[in-house]
């Protein structure tokens, strides 16, 4: 609460409290001033009434003694009347201003102050002219030497018939004013009471102002400042990124509504942020995925491109080689016919023929690789082709010591393509497996249906217990002419041709291998479901 008054321009509560405080002080001051003035006026009028009756009473009291011309008696009565504490003096003076009787006895025979109410009560300026003032005011208040406020009241002793006709010293009847009674009454008591009352009132007012200001301040602080500062704090927290924060204002007034709205806003904000974060994350994941995909596609594309250009080159070379090879083969055969079959020459020629044959095979492979497009398209049942290939292979000497583990899913895996190409792929897989196992061991073949991106695929698995593939060889596996086999055993075209064919059909080949334990190849091909 303290710091809100250090920078009041920054706090609503401080402004409110200051405004209300100032207003209260101003209003109570006006109220206080009005009351005091009214009180003084009332008291004065009472004092005047009493003063008036006092001089009246004095006049009546001395009437008889004046009438009967008993100056002592008059003086005595005046002295008696002058005894009370509040009565400073009671005097009788004539129209000249000469004091005839005085309760204080001292200033008898002196003249009254003509500038005072004693004459001015009726005349405007008695020294110069007897002109009468419009309004007669027979009293005045002044401070005497001691600084005490004194009420001076006069009353006229008019010429009565009893006076003008009195035997003794009759006043001429044309004189209206015989003299005046004047009383000087101390207002000390009244002033004292008034002062006490004033002090009390001021104390009350100050207390009231203080108490009201304090309670108002507390109330405003409770109702306005605290919730507002909580809201502000909440907003600052939110601005600094903390969306877990909520403002704990439970009231049902506008502040509570504001707080609830604020909390709801923060919730929305948080939800939006969370959502955005989730989106960002998925987006990032998606981007990463796509980037990887693009990279993969790029690599594949490069590979395909490389393969294609290699293939074109290979095809050209193969065609050209076919012609000289024809000559070699023909003449070797013709020459062979001239020698007996057991002769050394015949055997040497056999080597030429064999090697030429090898060349011819390489060329055939190259050409297959060069044109991985199916020649005789038709509906091919993968399981049938697999069974046929396995049967064919099992009769070969190479596979005599190999056990086949066949696990084909009973499902019509139908693909439109060239069955001889599938056979070529499978055959290469089996030969590779047999080579990897030194022609001894177990080959597992399986087919199963899978789905990828909602599309049906057939997965053909070839698993062997062979030597495995070294990590550094993995990327080169599908490159044409990559082989680890001794010269004459492998051309390194098997997998690249397979890759080309599978690729052309919209599929791909996956490899998993552990050196020393074995290798699994997975050929995945999309199924033509509507054509089944």
């Amino acid at each position, binding site marked *: 609460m303290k710091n809100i008054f250090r920078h009041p321009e920054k706090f609503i509560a401080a402004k409110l409290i200051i405004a209300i405080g100032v207003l209260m002080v101003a209003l109570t001051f006006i109220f206080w001033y009005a009351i005091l003035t009214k009180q003084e006026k009332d008291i004065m009028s009472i004092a005047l009434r009493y003063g008036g009756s006092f001089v009246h009473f004095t006049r009546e009291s001395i009437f008889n003694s004046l009438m009967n011309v008993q100056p002592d008696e008059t003086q005595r009565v005046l002295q008696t009347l002058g005894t009370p504490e509040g009565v400073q003096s009671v005097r009788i003076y004539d129209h000249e201003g000469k004091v005839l009787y005085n309760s204080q006895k001292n200033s008898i025979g002196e003249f009254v102050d003509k500038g005072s109410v004693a004459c001015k009560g009726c005349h405007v300026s008695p020294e110069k002219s007897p002109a009468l003032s419009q309004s007669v005011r027979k009293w005045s208040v002044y401070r005497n030497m001691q600084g005490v406020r004194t009420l001076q009241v006069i009353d006229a002793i008019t010429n009565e018939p009893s006076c003008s006709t009195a035997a003794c010293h009759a006043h001429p009847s044309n004189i209206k004013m015989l003299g005046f009674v004047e009383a000087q009454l101390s207002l000390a008591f009244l002033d004292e009471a008034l002062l006490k009352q004033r002090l009390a009132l001021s104390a009350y007012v100050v207390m009231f102002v203080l108490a009201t200001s304090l309670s108002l301040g507390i109330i405003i602080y409770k109702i306005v400042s605290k919730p507002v500062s909580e809201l502000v704090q909440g907003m600052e927290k939110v601005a600094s990124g903390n969306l877990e924060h909520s403002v704990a204002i439970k009231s049902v007034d506008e502040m509570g509504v504001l707080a609830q709205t604020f909390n709801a806003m923060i919730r929305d904000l948080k939800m939006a942020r969370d959502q955005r974060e989730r989106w960002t994350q998925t987006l990032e994941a998606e981007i990463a995925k796509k980037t990887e995909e693009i990279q993969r596609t790029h690599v594949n594309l490069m590979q395909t491109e490389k393969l294609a250009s290699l293939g074109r080159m290979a*095809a050209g070379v*193969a*065609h050209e080689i*076919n*012609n*000289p*090879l*024809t*000559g*070699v*083969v*023909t*003449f070797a*055969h*013709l020459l062979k*016919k001239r020698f007996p079959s057991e002769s050394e020459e015949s055997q040497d020629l056999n080597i030429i*023929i064999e090697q*030429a044959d090898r060349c*011819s095979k390489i*060329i*055939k492979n190259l*050409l297959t690789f*060069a*044109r991985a497009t199916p*020649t005789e398209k038709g509906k091919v049942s993968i399981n049938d082709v697999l069974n046929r290939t396995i049967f064919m292979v099992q009769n070969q000497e190479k596979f005599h010591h190999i056990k086949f583990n066949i696990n084909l899913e009973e499902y019509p895996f139908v693909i439109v393509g060239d069955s001889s190409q599938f056979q070529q792929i499978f055959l290469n897989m089996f030969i590779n497996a047999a080579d990897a196992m030194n022609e001894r061991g177990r080959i597992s073949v399986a087919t199963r249906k899978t789905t990828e991106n909602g599309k049906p695929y057939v997965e053909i698995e070839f698993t062997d217990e062979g030597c495995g593939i070294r990590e550094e060889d993995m990327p080169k596996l599908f490159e044409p002419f990559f082989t680890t086999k001794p010269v004459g055993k492998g051309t390194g075209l098997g997998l690249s041709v397979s890759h080309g064919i599978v690729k052309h059909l919209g599929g791909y080949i996956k490899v998993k291998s552990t050196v020393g334990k074995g290798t699994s190849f997975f050929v995945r091909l999309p199924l033509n479901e509507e054509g089944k």
Partner: protein
Amino acid sequence: MKRILVIDDEPIVRTSCMRALQYEGYEVMLAGSGNEGLDMLNKGSFELVLLDLKMPDMDGMEVLMKIKEQWPGTKVVMITGYSTVETAVQALRLGAYNFVEKPFTPDTLLSAVREVMENSGSRPKE
């Protein structure tokens, strides 16, 4: 004695054919291009033409059509490379009798030639 014409742009293929067939007693004439072959066909009759599919100026297929047009009785065996199996099939449809793939051995060539000769009812001289 049956006359055989070999049309091939590759001299080694031509000689290979000639030597393999001469060895078996056939009379073999050689032509280095489609035009030359057609000229020779104009001059004398041949029982069989061995025709290379892939040749620089006149394509084997074109030559085949011309032969079948002018000398329908003359048999044609195509010599192809592996990659031209489809075209070989097409050649068969156009009237070629058979085809041999390069590189061939004398035996494959001879058996293809014999098949033609036997079906046309004439045998090479022993």
